[in-house]
C-alpha cells in the first residue's frame, strides 16, 4: 500500500486562535502525493478547523500552508515565494501556492483543493446532475465566454457542456448514483448524499481532496464501499486524499499516514501501525492522562 511520493501539501506551524481558544496549536505535517493521509483525534480536537484553514475558509493566525502541483522540483521555489508576498507561482513544470494567503474560492479554483463538509452541504433543490455541473462552473464559464457566447448560442459552449455532462456521468457511474441523476439531491438517502458530495468534489479535478468524516452516519457496508471507491480514485486519478475520520476501521484500513490531534496539538504521526500502539493516542482517545493508560487498558481488557 505504499503510494509514497514527494509531498503535495506542507502544513507548517499552523496555529488558529478563536479569541482565547487555541483550536490548532503549532501543527506541522505533510500530505504525500498519491497517498491517503488521515487526520484523527477526539471531538473538538481541531480537525475541521485545520480543514478550514487549508481550504481558505478561515485565515490562520500563524503558519504556512503550501501546496504543490506538477513536478516536485517546484518546492525549491517555496522560500522565494514566501518572501515575495505573492499567493502563488506557476511555472511550466508545475505550480506552488500559499493557501493561507488565498480566499476560499481561489483555493478551489487555482490551487485545486476540493473538500466535503462534516454536515453535508449539497444543493438540495437541484438535481444530482446539476450538482455535478455546478462543480464544473469555472471551465464551463470560460467555455461560455463568460456567458456572452453562451447566451448567443455559440457551438463551442454546447460541446463544452456535452463534455461536462460526460464527466458528470462517469463520476455518477463510479459512485453508483447514475440511476438517481435526475432526482433532487435533497431526496437521496443519507449514504448516497455523502457519496454525491465526494463525487461533486471530484468533478472539480482536484489535486488534493479533503474529506471531513465521509463515513459518518454510513452503515458498515456503505462504509466499506466508500473505502473501496476512495482507494480506487486515489490510484487512478493521481490525487492525494486528506481525510478526517472517527471510524478506526476505516482509518487503519485505507490510510498510508496518520496525524493525531488532541486539543489542537499534534500528539503523534506516522504509519497506521505506529499510531495504533502509541500510548499518547490511546490516552487521548480514552480521555485519561498518560500514566493511567496501563491501568485503564487493563480494566477494559486490552
Amino acid at each position, binding site marked *: 500500500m505504499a503510494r509514497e511520493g514527494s509531498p503535495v501539501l506542507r502544513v507548517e506551524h499552523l496555529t488558529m486562535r478563536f479569541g482565547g481558544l487555541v483550536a490548532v496549536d503549532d501543527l506541522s505535517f505533510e500530505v504525500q502525493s498519491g497517498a491517503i493521509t488521515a487526520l484523527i483525534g477526539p471531538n473538538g480536537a481541531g480537525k*475541521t478547523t485545520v480543514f*478550514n484553514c487549508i481550504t481558505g475558509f*478561515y485565515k490562520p493566525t500563524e503558519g504556512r500552508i503550501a501546496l504543490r502541483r506538477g513536478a516536485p522540483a517546484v518546492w525549491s521555489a517555496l522560500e522565494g515565494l514566501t518572501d515575495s508576498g505573492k499567493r502563488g507561482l506557476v511555472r511550466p513544470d508545475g505550480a506552488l501556492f500559499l493557501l493561507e494567503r488565498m480566499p476560499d474560492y481561489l483555493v478551489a479554483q487555482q490551487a485545486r483543493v476540493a473538500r466535503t463538509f462534516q454536515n453535508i452541504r449539497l444543493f438540495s433543490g437541484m438535481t444530482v446532475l446539476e450538482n455535478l455541473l455546478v462543480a464544473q462552473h469555472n471551465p464551463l464559464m470560460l467555455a461560455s465566454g463568460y456567458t456572452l457566447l453562451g447566451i448567443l448560442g455559440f457551438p463551442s459552449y454546447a460541446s463544452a457542456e456535452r463534455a461536462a455532462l460526460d464527466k458528470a456521468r462517469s463520476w455518477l457511474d463510479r459512485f453508483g448514483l447514475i440511476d438517481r441523476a435526475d432526482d433532487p439531491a435533497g431526496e437521496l438517502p443519507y449514504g448516497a448524499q455523502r457519496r454525491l458530495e465526494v463525487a461533486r468534489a471530484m468533478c472539480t479535478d482536484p489535486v488534493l481532496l479533503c474529506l471531513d468524516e465521509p463515513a459518518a452516519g454510513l452503515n458498515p457496508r456503505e462504509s466499506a464501499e466508500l473505502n473501496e471507491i476512495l482507494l480506487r480514485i486515489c490510484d487512478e486519478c493521481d490525487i492525494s486524499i486528506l481525510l478526517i475520520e472517527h471510524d478506526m476501521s476505516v482509518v487503519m484500513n485505507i490510510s498510508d499516514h496518520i496525524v493525531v490531534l488532541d486539543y489542537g496539538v499534534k500528539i503523534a504521526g506516522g504509519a497506521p501501525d505506529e499510531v495504533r500502539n502509541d500510548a499518547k493516542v490511546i490516552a487521548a482517545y480514552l480521555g485519561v492522562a498518560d500514566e493511567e493508560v496501563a491501568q485503564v487498558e487493563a480494566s477494559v481488557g486490552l
Partner: protein
Amino acid sequence: MEYFVQQLINGITLGSIYGLIAIGYTMVFGIIGMVNFAHGDVFMVSAFIALITFLILTAWLGISSIVLALAIVLIVAMLFTSLVNWVIERVAYRPLRGSFRLAPLISAIGMSIFLSNFVQVTQGPRNKSIPPMVSGEFVLANHNNFPVTLSYKQLIIWGLTAVLLLAFWYLVAKTPLGRAQRACEQDQKMAALLGIDVDRTISMTFIIAAALAAVAGTMYLMYYGVVTFSDGFVPGVKAFTAAVLGGIGSLPGAVVGGLIIGLIETLWSAYFSIDYKDVAAFSILAITLIFLPQGLFGRPDVEKV
C-alpha cells in the same frame, strides 16, 4: 452651543419614539425571525386610537384634567393596539409560521398596505390635528437670548420611555414570560418539548410590541398634534433602521439605535439640510452595516463551516 444642546434635547425626544417602535421590530424578529413590516402601521393605528380616545374624553366626557386624560388615552391605546396586533399575528402570520421566510414578509407587507388604507378609508385621507394637549416648558439656560428649553411634552416622553424601558427590561430578564421568550428565540421546538406554550409566548410578544408602539403613537400624537393614515411608513422604516443599526434581536440595541437615528436626523436638519435628513439617516445605516455587519450590539453571525 445652546443651539446644539437644544437640538440634542429634540433629538433624544424623537429618538425615544423611534426606540420604542424599534423594540417591537427587534422583539418580533428575535422570536420568529420575521421582519414585521406592518409594525409601523400598527404604530399609526395606535396614534389614531389615541386620537379618538382623546376626543371622546375631552369633547364628550368633558374631562379637563390633562394628566388623567393622558393616562386614560395611554391605557386605552395600549389595550386596543395590543388587540389589533394580537389579531394580526393570529390571522396573517401564525398560519405561515415555519414555512418559507418570504411568505410572512409578503404577508406583513400586505398587512401594512391594508392597515394604512383601512385607516384612510374609515377615517378619511386628511391630516387630523388636535389642539396641543400639554404646553409649557422649562427654560434650562438662557444665554445670548437663546433659551434652551425642555418642554413638558419632552419631559413626559423621556420619563415615560425610561419607566417603560425599566419595566420592560424587568419583564424580559426576570419573569417566566421573559424566560419563555428567550427559550423560544433559541429553539422553538425544544422549548415546546419542555412544556413552554410557544403560541402563547409569541402572542405575548406581539402584544408587548404593540403596547410599546401604542405608547410611541400616543406620544407622537401629543408631540406633533397631528396624524394621518400614511404616518406609519416613514417612522416605521426609521425604527426598523434603528433596530438593525443596534443589532436586530438586541433590546438595548434597539433603544440605542433609535436614539442615534433620532439624533442624526435632528442634528442633520439643524446643521446641514432638512431636505436630506432621511438620506443622512439611511446612509449612516448603510455605512454602519457595511463596516459592522451585525449592527452595534448584535451577535456576530459566524458562518460555521
